[in-house]
């Protein structure tokens, strides 16, 4: 693979027009990735998901250069129906459409030729890979005091032409003071066996509000890694919801720094997995100043031989008195060969805090099934009702009414 990487990297530099600074950073990042390679089980954060093995098992002849010179067709049919929204459309890693029809023009700014920086987390080789191979690095800025009228949907679409490629995207979003944004990331994949590596940097300034919904619901054989780095200033709120269901492998990593007083972060997630799917959510919530709050709720339903992993960490700095941290993960295992692994971690250096975590996994409650069957439901219906109720608990945490209904429809949960 190393040779392929080198060839593809030179090809990318030849065919693109990067600034001198970026070429330099790219080279450094590239060398760093070559040195480390894809993460494997020996690294603590990849203990339950050996990416190196997963890639070599699922993807043959992975290549890293992606020709972005030709435009791709957009399949309009996959656009979300019944919800007015702004669009950012990526097809096979190339930006095809930027559309903010509902918004005031001078309140939103999009930059696309930014200086790259060295990743702060020097242990994460995938950030270096992203840095080395990303071709356009976008930044979306929502200006001071502006709230978007309609949600923004970022479509990550791949079509049949894409096979065994590595796609690297990098998007920064800056919410200036008092601004707010509802962001839906929607994946639709018709491609097979690609490695998709997306890196989001979300910067929330004072009093800003971000609602972020990540939806991956359509079955496909791609391997995906999302790294979301969030930093929050005073009074800012972030609400994240993950629907982790479609792809063969996904690892959603959320690193959230609560830098300002009264900042709060909510992370809710749902795994709905079948067949050989293997998904992971890893969170790292850092309470760095006093009076911050975080809440995490993750639930999973596993079928066939699927596997789900939740690694959640709450870190409380010695300055962060009055922290309120909560974390709960639950899973229902429906088959003999399913597996749920959890590592709910607390690292606490302040004494006046309220932190707790819980984790539970097991089968459906037989008594509940019996009760429902005695009321006339058949076994299948009873099971479905219980599972829906189990998952609805998380979906109900979504604060936006319209989007909540949309997600319920996608998950086909009845109200």
């Amino acid at each position, binding site marked *: 693979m190393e040779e392929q990487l080198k060839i593809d990297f030179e090809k990318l530099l030849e065919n693109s027009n990067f600034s001198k600074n970026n070429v330099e950073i790219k080279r450094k990042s590239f060398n760093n990735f070559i040195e480390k390679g894809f993460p494997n089980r020996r690294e603590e954060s990849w203990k339950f998901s050996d990416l190196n093995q997963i890639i070599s098992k699922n993807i043959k002849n992975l290549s890293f250069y992606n020709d972005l010179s030709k435009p791709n067709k957009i399949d309009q049919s996959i656009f979300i129906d019944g919800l007015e929204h702004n669009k950012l459309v990526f097809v096979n890693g190339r930006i095809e459409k930027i559309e903010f029809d509902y918004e005031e023009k001078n309140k939103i700014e999009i930059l696309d030729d930014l200086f790259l920086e060295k990743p702060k987390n020097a242990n994460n080789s995938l950030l270096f890979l992203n840095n080395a191979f990303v071709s356009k690095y976008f930044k979306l800025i929502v200006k001071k005091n502006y709230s978007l009228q309609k949600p923004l949907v970022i479509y990550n679409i791949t079509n049949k032409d894409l096979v065994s490629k590595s796609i690297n995207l990098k998007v920064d979003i800056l919410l200036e003071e008092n601004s707010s944004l509802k962001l839906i990331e929607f994946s639709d994949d018709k491609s097979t066996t690609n490695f998709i590596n997306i890196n989001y940097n979300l910067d929330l300034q004072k009093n800003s509000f971000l609602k972020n919904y990540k939806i991956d619901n359509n079955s496909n054989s791609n391997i995906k890694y999302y790294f979301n780095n969030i930093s929050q200033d005073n009074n800012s709120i972030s609400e994240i919801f993950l629907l982790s269901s479609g792809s063969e492998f996904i690892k959603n990593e959320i690193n959230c720094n609560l830098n300002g007083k009264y900042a709060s972060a909510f992370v809710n997630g749902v795994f709905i997995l079948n067949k050989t799917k293997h998904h992971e959510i890893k969170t790292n919530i850092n309470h760095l100043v006093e009076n911050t709050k975080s809440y995490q709720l993750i639930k999973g339903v596993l079928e066939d031989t699927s596997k789900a992993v939740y690694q959640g960490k709450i870190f409380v700095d010695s300055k962060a008195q009055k922290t309120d941290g909560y974390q709960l993960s639950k899973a229902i295992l429906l088959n003999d060969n399913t597996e*749920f692994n959890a590592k709910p971690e*607390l*690292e*606490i250096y302040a004494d006046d805090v309220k932190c*707790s*975590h*819980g984790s539970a996994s097991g*089968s459906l409650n037989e008594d509940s099934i019996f009760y429902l069957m005695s009321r006339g439901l058949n076994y299948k219906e009873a099971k479905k009702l219980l599972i829906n109720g189990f998952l609805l608990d998380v979906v109900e945490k979504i604060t936006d009414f319209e989007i909540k209904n949309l997600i319920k429809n996608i998950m086909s949960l009845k109200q």
Partner: protein
Amino acid sequence: MREKQIDKLKDYKYGFTTDIENIRAPKGLNKEVIEFISKAKKEPKWMLDWRMKAFERLKNLKEPNWQKPKYPKIDYQDIYYYSAPKSASEKPKNIDELDPKLLETYKKLGIPLQEQQRLNGIAVDAVFDSVSVATTFKDKLNEVGVIFCSISEAIQKHPELVKKYLGSVIPLTDHYFATLNSAVFTDGSFVYIPPGVKCPMELSTYFRINASQTGQFERTLIIADKGSYVSYLEGCTAPMRDENQLHAANVELVALDNAEIKYSTVQNWYPGDENGKGGIYNFVTKRGLCKGTNSKISWTQVETGSAITWKYPSCVLQGDNSIGEFYSIAITNNYQKADTGTKMIHLGKNTKSKIISKGISAGFSDMTYRGLVDISSKAKHSTNYTQCDSLLMGNKCGAHTVPYIKNKNPESNIAHEATTSKISEEQLHYCQQRGLNPEEAVGLIVNGFCKEVLQQLPMEFAVEAQKLVGISLEGSVG
């Protein structure tokens, strides 16, 4: 200067040394030293071969470094691996023949062997530095067929049992410190409870590191045969020294069908002074195997000492319907560090495990609970319940929880809970209002916090443990 020393002594009441001439093996870790140890213990050849095998393997092993408390590199060539009181090389027949100075030491420790023999009815095996000095209460145990002796004695007298079970729970191929122990272990206790026997008294071992620059590498092997029961207590202390001393023991428990082993530890090795200088590195491997059906192993530990405590008493629940329990109180003060917890490995059907862990950190200390619950796909209808609570005193210390939870079985249930809190002003105020001074109040509240675990300890130990909890936290309030 002298006053200072006295002050120091007050803090750690076990901080005395005893002037007893020691026989030591040459410093360092090599073939000759292992041969020396084996020879000194008059071991048969198979035992020496076993040690050599471990030593060969050790050469290819690396010290683990994933733990939270980091420590300066240990120079394994700078440690005496064998140190024995000279007068014990000819082993006394009974307790009255023991070196009076040794007896004095134990008296200071609060375990006068003779008195204990008479009054308490607890059989004690005391391990001084590396050699088991005396085992009390032999006759009474012989009557019911319980074998309770030092492991070196067992190697000579009961080789068939030792051969069968030694290394069956912690194999030669285990991690670095366990393998190091297998190569150089010097003494420890051996217990065998015959089928159907309920051991008539609590068995107890006392460990003490006396000589400087020595490590203590004891090995304990407890076998509870079918339908038997034993409760075993272990206590440890060491004198105060500025250097760090290594303690790498292995404890293996085997419970056969319907047998039950209850293992309690009160660990009070020297924790170092208030600036974090000196103290014991307590890197112990403890593992129990519930081999038979309906067997049960229960670990209870009170960890108040050591500069660094790094251990995970574990249960491998192999037999169907077997039960594993883990009750722990860990207290760190000043610059102490602890990374402790348990592993519950469910292999058999209907296996149950329960984990209750209470961590208290004060001063500049750092405490980590790290645990593993692993339910394999064959362990149908297994359940686990875990509760780990931490109490923080001040904002210079840390409390961490790192549980690993693996469930591969849909018919099994796992529940895990953890909380972190501090002593509230209201609680303190209430107690003080009732006439307690702040330290007493904290002691009372902490004891209440630990109650669930303290209840699991045998009577004699519970009292000592409760006092220890108080002593360990002295000066941490305000």
